[in-house]
């Protein structure tokens, strides 16, 4: 087959629960593979924070929704001859299948490269897939496809409870679950049918092991398994929610090879070309014979597991899959790690990896913390070690939640009984196991309660016992003891806690007696061949280094750590670009990160990659070994930034703004004083250790106030309180106020605009800055807000003032590197909320919109000379783009960033926008006008132009009045408008007719829930007023809408802009223009 000339790649859009950064990795590798073959690449992906949407990767990028409508338009325009469907997760796959089904691909002569569409379809249709497997003699759990709740109940009766419910065509197992009885089944199926038309009711395999294989096949039928993985959690917990080890630990050779063979048989039978994942259930105690297994599912595309397998082994799965899709034979591809061997092999590991998901469930109000067969986690980390104990303890620390290893009890304070914590799977369970062992609960009992194989429990027991044996006094720590503890993955800090001293003290002791870790290479062949790449990890289970230090040539760049609410792929983009830019300054980049979903952890991005913890201890270990020129802490988000002071105190040269100045910006008291000195306005605030003082202050400055506790028991961190009662209630419920845990109270300015300044400075002088504006008023977290460039509603005076404040602060703090300031503006008054001396999450957005690479400016600012290769790059970039200080002023288009929420995933979570961030990702779209860009962005995050009906529930007089005009506009759509009683009566007075629906709790017909269920409503606008008595009823409505897959707007400004957009624009007139066509670069 001849190579195609132009290939269209579909991305996965915004990061969401179930579909995260792993698809930036896979898409980026695919583009790389295509470029090497001289093939032109066109990418559709609205996720502007990704690395794949960079100039150095895809030739043409469309920041458009990945839906059949838009992709068809791009196909018409670009006329590609090939398309990649399997590199953009379920989103890309679903879109591609739909295009194929409609004959669009055929019509435009676009061939699907790699795995044939029929195969993808077969693998996605669970019923057809199990029939196929039965035909080739492979076991699947007894399962029956149903299309209604009634049928589901009948089938379950037949199979016997508990049953497993699975839905096809859904990412991350959405709509799946285990039902123990009729009621639970009814609940699960109702929700599932809101997303899909068919579900499977299955025999539930209680406490089976879950094992996965990553399989690669080429067109010539060469087939390999790159990696197998074992879930520590038994079947029933989604693999994305499980703690996973690679390779498998409890399988013997027979089981390993048997399942490997079955995986290969399946892959061959459906003629995969590229990469595929097969998941098995394996009975740990087969009643007869040597094996009792079932196939659970197959993913005929790159997946979260394949990204993990890729990082676990060093085998570039996505890159190889892309080459195979271009009809290459596996033996024609070189193993880039060794540079000498073949891609046609199966990696041999001489280490173990442990993946732990990162959950942020407590960030969602009302959320259920139980984990199960659908995904709730927002990110993951991967610990590498040469013992399970070492890898596991590393991974717990990588989560960046202050867990000092698996014996941490941070999550277990004031909790339910240990047994309960064992039985009901939650993010706490792994820690509860260690606690249970400490409490003397027998491993047999733990195994019975958790279903976790005793092998893992024995290993955790080994850790607990070692901890128990630690002497109480550090004088008694000898070389042998320290080695033992370090080999089992204990941190200095933990050992310090156990011996009543500090981690630093243990570090000093350790170094003095020569207990220092080794720097080992991941070489894919367990030492059989030397490796060319520098993919590294740090271990105490070795006694040599595989590499030599970089010395002054090296610069360490700290990556972002796990993706979580508030820190996501945008910081991977900044880390990657920093590493790349360092090359221009003749430096060797040394990247540290521990997140397997990232591009920064591809070994060909940096000169050296340490897949490691971002803890002080580990960074200091690497620093001690490498002895580099310096460390960059300002491009990976808050985690690396938090290391500034400890690293500085240890004597590590921090590149950029001095740590003392960072402290002046981060310490609220010092910063407030600085603002006063500079005569910059700020909202009134103070710190309190006593509730009554806090209340007096709130009453003095006037409610509402913004509360920021320093210690939280549960629930959210920040809250706006509108009156004394709310303040009392909040403080009693969620937080503690004491000397140790002071409370910050600041005046909350209502109806204020929120504005951001992003800038880079060098030695206190601003090199470039940009102002962007939030659509939502202050009160919505900046990470959740819609951000527009250039600003649409700011006058010259405000803009100038903001720019000047930026310059003043840059000077006062002697900033070198990136910074971001958040402002409030009301009645032409500007005040500063906070400043961060690090790259903000909008860096990729502003860089890609303005064409000024802010990261490049940041790296240049670290060095006395600008890049020797490009002497005055900074200046020339700014000149070339004909921009001065206010970069945004000259843009002939509008770009708008819209947040992606994943509320549907978090059972019970309230979808309301507030001061705590809740979004999991973002997109940015371009347009001639703000409305165009906003509508595109809204569609890209799953919004729809309503076609069936709109439900309005406008809380409070203020909201009602503010929405009158918009309600009139909605009428012009000529679709039914429904409203709650109050809203309906109110709107009628203004001549706007609506149909009244009862609230859910009123249990009267016509009821809003009934209309949701009948799919008569496809837009809900629920504006919320504080201090409402009936808030709980509104929550029920919002939540029901989310559970029925209906878009919900809860913010007045956002709802208003959306209304304007859908009433003045049509999908068919939205521009289909590439990034380049907008920006001209």
């Amino acid at each position, binding site marked *: 087959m001849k190579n195609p000339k132009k290939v269209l790649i579909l991305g996965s859009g915004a990061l969401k629960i179930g579909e995260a950064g792993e698809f930036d990795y896979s898409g980026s590798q695919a583009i790389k593979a295509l470029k090497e073959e001289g093939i032109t690449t066109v990418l559709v992906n609205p996720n502007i924070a990704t690395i794949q949407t960079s100039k150095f990767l895809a030739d043409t990028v469309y920041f458009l929704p990945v839906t059949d409508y838009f992709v068809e338009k791009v196909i018409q325009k670009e006329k590609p001859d090939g398309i990649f469907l399997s590199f953009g997760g379920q989103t890309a796959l679903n879109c591609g299948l739909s295009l194929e089904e409609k004959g669009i691909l055929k019509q435009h002569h676009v061939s699907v490269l790699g795995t044939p569409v029929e195969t993808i379809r077969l693998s996605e249709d669970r019923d057809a897939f199990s029939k196929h497997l039965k035909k080739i003699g492979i076991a699947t759990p007894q399962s029956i496809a149903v299309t209604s709740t009634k049928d589901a109940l009948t089938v379950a009766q037949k199979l016997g409870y508990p049953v497993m419910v699975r839905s096809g065509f859904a990412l991350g197992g959405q709509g799946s679950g285990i039902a123990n009885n009729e009621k639970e089944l009814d609940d699960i199926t109702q929700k599932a049918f809101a997303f899909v038309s068919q579900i499977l009711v299955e025999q539930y395999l209680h406490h089976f092991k879950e094992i996965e294989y990553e399989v690669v096949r080429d067109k*010539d*039928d*060469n087939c*390999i398994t790159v990696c197998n993985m074992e879930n520590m959690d038994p079947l029933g917990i989604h693999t994305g929610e499980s703690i996973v080890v690679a*390779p*498998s*630990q*409890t*399988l*013997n*050779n*027979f089981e*390993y*090879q048997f399942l*490997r*063979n079955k995986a*290969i048989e399946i892959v061959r039978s459906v003629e995969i070309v590229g990469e595929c994942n097969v998941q098995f259930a394996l009975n*740990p*105690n*087969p009643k007869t014979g*040597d094996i009792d297994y079932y196939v659970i599912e197959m993913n005929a595309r790159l997946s979260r597991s394949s990204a993990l397998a890729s990082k676990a082994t060093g085998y570039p799965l996505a890159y190889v899959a892309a080459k195979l899709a271009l009809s290459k*034979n*596996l*033996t024609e591809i070189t193993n880039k790690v060794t540079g*000498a*061997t*073949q891609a*046609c*092999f*199966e*990696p*041999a*590991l*001489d*280490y*173990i990896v442990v993946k732990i998901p990162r959950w942020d469930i407590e960030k969602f109000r009302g959320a259920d913390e139980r984990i199960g067969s659908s995904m709730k986690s927002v990110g993951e980390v991967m610990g590498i070690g*040469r*013992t*399970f104990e070492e890898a596991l303890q590393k991974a717990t620390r990588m989560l960046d939640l202050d867990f000092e290893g698996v014996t941490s009890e941070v999550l277990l304070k004031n909790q339910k009984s240990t047994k309960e914590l064992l039985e009901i799977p939650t993010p706490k369970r792994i820690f509860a196991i260690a606690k249970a062992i400490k409490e003397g609960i027998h491993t047999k009992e733990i195994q019975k309660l958790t279903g976790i*194989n*005793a*092998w893992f429990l*024995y290993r955790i027991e080994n850790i607990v016992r070692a901890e128990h044996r630690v002497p109480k006094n550090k004088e008694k720590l000898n070389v042998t003891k320290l080695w033992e503890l370090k*080999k089992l993955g204990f941190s200095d800090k933990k050992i310090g806690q156990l011996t009543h001293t500090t981690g630093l003290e243990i570090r000093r002791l350790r170094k003095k007696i020569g207990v220092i870790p*080794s720097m*080992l290479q991941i070489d894919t*062949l*367990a*030492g*059989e*061949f*030397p490796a060319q790449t520098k993919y590294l990890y740090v271990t105490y*289970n*070795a*006694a*040599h280094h*595989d590499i030599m230090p970089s010395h002054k040539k090296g610069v360490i760049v700290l990556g972002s750590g796990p993706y979580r609410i508030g820190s996501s792929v945008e910081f991977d983009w900044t880390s990657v670009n920093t590493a790349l830019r360092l090359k221009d300054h003749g430096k060797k980049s040394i990247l540290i990160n521990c997140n397997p979903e990232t591009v920064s952890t591809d070994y060909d991005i940096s000169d050296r990659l340490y897949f490691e913890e971002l803890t002080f201890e580990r960074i200091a270990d690497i620093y001690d070994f490498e002895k580099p020129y310096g460390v960059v802490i300002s491009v990976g988000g808050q985690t690396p930034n938090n290391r500034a002071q400890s690293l500085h105190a240890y004597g590590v040269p921090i590149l950029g703004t001095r740590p003392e100045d960072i402290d002046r910006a981060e310490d609220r008291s010092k910063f407030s004083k600085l603002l006063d000195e500079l005569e910059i306005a700020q909202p009134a605030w103070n710190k309190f250790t006593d509730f009554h003082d806090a209340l007096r202050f709130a009453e003095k400055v006037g409610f509402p106030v913004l509360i920021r506790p320093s210690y939280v028991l549960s629930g959210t961190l920040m809250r706006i309180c509108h009156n004394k009662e709310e303040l009392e209630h909040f403080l009693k419920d969620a937080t503690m106020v004491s000397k140790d845990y002071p409370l910050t109270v600041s005046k909350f300015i209502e109806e204020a605009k929120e504005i951001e300044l992003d800038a880079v400075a060098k030695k206190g002088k601003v090199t470039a800055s940009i102002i962007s504006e939030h659509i939502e008023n202050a009160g919505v977290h900046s990470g959740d807000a819609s951000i527009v460039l250039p600003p649409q509603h700011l006058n010259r005076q405000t803009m100038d003032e903001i720019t000047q404040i930026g310059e003043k602060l840059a000077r006062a703090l002697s900033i070198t590197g990136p910074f971001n300031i958040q402002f409030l503006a009301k009645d032409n008054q500007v005040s500063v909320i906070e400043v961060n001396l690090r790259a903000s999450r909008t860096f990729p957005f502003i860089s890609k919109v303005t064409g000024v690479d802010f990261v490049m400016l940041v790296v240049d600012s670290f060095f006395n000379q600008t890049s020797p290769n490009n002497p005055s790059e900074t200046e020339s970039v700014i000149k070339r783009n004909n921009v001065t200080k206010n970069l945004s002023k000259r843009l002939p288009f509008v770009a708008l960033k819209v947040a992606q929420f994943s509320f549907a995933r978090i059972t019970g979570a309230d979808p309301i926008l507030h001061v705590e961030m809740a979004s999991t990702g973002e997109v940015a779209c371009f347009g001639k006008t703000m409305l165009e860009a906003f509508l595109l962005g809204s569609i890209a995050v799953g919004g729809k132009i309503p076609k069936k009906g709109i439900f309005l529930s406008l809380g409070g007089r203020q909201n009602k009045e503010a929405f009158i005009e918009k309600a009139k506009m909605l009428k012009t759509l000529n679709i039914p408008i429904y409203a709650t009683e109050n809203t309906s009566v109110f709107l009628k007075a203004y001549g706007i007719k609506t149909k009244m629906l009862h609230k859910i709790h009123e249990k009267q017909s016509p009821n809003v829930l009934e209309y949701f269920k009948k799919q008569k409503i496809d837009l809900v606008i629920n504006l919320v007023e504080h201090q409402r008595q009936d808030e709980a009823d509104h929550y029920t409505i919002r939540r029901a809408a989310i559970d029925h897959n209906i878009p919900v707007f809860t913010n007045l400004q956002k709802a208003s802009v959306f209304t304007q957009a859908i009433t003045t624009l049509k999908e068919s007139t939205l521009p289909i223009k590439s990034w380049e066509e907008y920006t001209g670069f």
Partner: protein
Amino acid sequence: MIGKLVFEDGSIFEGRSFGNNTSVAGELVFQTGMVGYPESLTDPSYAGQILILTYPIIGSYGVPQKKYWESDRIQITGLIVSQYIGTPSHFQSRQTLASWLKENNIPALEITDTRTLAIKLREKGTSLGKIIIKNDVQFYDPNKENLVAKVSLQTAYRVGKGRKKIVLLDCGAKKNIERCLVKRGVEVIVAPWDYDPFAEKEQFDGLVISNGPGDPKMAGRTIQTIKKGLISKIPILGICLGNQLLALAAGGDTGKLKFGHRSHNQPCMMVGSTRCYITTQNHGFAVSKIPKGFSPWFINANDKTNEGIIHQKLPVMSVQFHPEATAGPTDTEWIFDFFLEKAKLL
């Protein structure tokens, strides 16, 4: 108890003893497979060798009943692992690895940095070595003696049922070769390495030469038998050592590799095709000269060494890898079918 692993060059690595507390000497080799230590330890090809496993966590699923082994005892001379797991969890586990080693009088050390041992062997080539626990012993080169004679069985036995009969010359055969043949419906006479079916006037239809330890040139009597087989045009399949013996018998040559192939992930290209197979391997010697009348059949995709030869006309062939696998992938088990079919033995 602490023991020492001593290399021929004098370098010493200490580790905790978890097997039998005796000192031994042999050849040091490393193996990179991630599963299958019970199979590897009972593989007679490892006779005379101290085995270093590069996968760092060993012992996790204990030791199964004898019927799952590759021979009826542990064949290695000594074992080196990074972390020994004494708390196995598997339904087939009957005892711990440590107790099994002790039962078989095999010493074993936990030397944390097994990676450095593997790299040392990779860079410097195979080395003699010894495990010293308590008393010292002399270095010993197993390749200087006929190991095949030591591990081969004493008296022949018959197994399996079928119309055709195959003689399997046991030069240190893994049990699974026999299982693979029997499974395919042939009668198998499993015979000692020096058994000469021609001299014994045994009626048989094919000859299979097994794997085995050491330098192939030591097994002269097996080579003689193969020569007779070639003359009488009997179908022959050689496996691993059997590959080298066939090459020698047919006029080819063999040589020692720098550090050998011992892993479950060796890619082998089938010459003249687009197919590449993932194979299990365990050998220190290889065919260096293809005999006349034969063609190269397989080639190692990594280091391009020969991995099998096939006669241009006759059903005579051999492979350097292990089609019977155990431990490792079974992707080349079809070699048995191919042989039986070409030899018209099915």
